[in-house]
């Protein structure tokens, strides 16, 4: 089955330290991968995506993600965390359904808490 996993329910990091939020995937074919962020009582906001090309993808708010095909991972990173980065983060993968159409499968989310 095609899926995406976020192994950590919560990640705590001190402000100014680097952060990593983990994501692994299982899909057939070339993966299209996405990261989203959700602030309280809001919808999901797109951060970045990997379609093809460089394994290091840069996105909004200073976030980046590293695609690793051999480890089937797409970890979200930021060199220096801010308290305002505290939010819920979702990894997603695009999959091709049996009807030949596209849908997005999401992980269970990782709550990032940046401590001042």
């Amino acid at each position, binding site marked *: 089955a095609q899926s995406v996993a*976020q192994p950590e329910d919560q990640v705590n990091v001190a402000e100014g330290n680097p952060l990593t939020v983990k994501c692994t995937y299982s899909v057939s074919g070339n993966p*299209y991968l*996405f990261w*989203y962020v959700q602030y309280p*009582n*809001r*919808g*999901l*906001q*797109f951060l970045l*995506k990997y*379609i093809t090309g460089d394994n290091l993808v840069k996105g909004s708010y200073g976030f980046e993600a590293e695609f690793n095909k051999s480890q089937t991972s797409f970890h979200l990173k930021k060199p220096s965390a801010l308290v305002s980065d505290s939010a819920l983060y*979702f990894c*997603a993968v*695009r999959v*091709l*359904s049996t*009807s030949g*159409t*596209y*849908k*997005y*499968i*999401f*992980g*269970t*989310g990782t709550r990032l808490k940046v401590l001042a």
Partner: protein
Amino acid sequence: DAGITQSPRHKVTETGTPVTLRCHQTENHRYMYWYRQDPGHGLRLIHYSYGVKDTDKGEVSDGYSVSRSKTEDFLLTLESATSSQTSVYFCAISESGEFEAFFGQGTRLTVV
């Protein structure tokens, strides 16, 4: 946010009653999706549409139906609401599978 409007934003309904949630887009995107968000489960796909009158099931489609009679509107109906359908429902749109999806603000549904 992209041009996506969900209505209502909040609703409380009784068990056994029908409920319809509306998603309206102004982006003319082909794909529209309905997800539900529950603690510990993340976002789970209910149904999606890839064109007018073209829909397909997601992973948690039981108890839900959808309709798309116009490009801009995608309706989610709970035929007979149950307490297990208490959740936050999100609509998303995408131009194609090549692009990211954009999300609405969500509808908080409580079934009592």
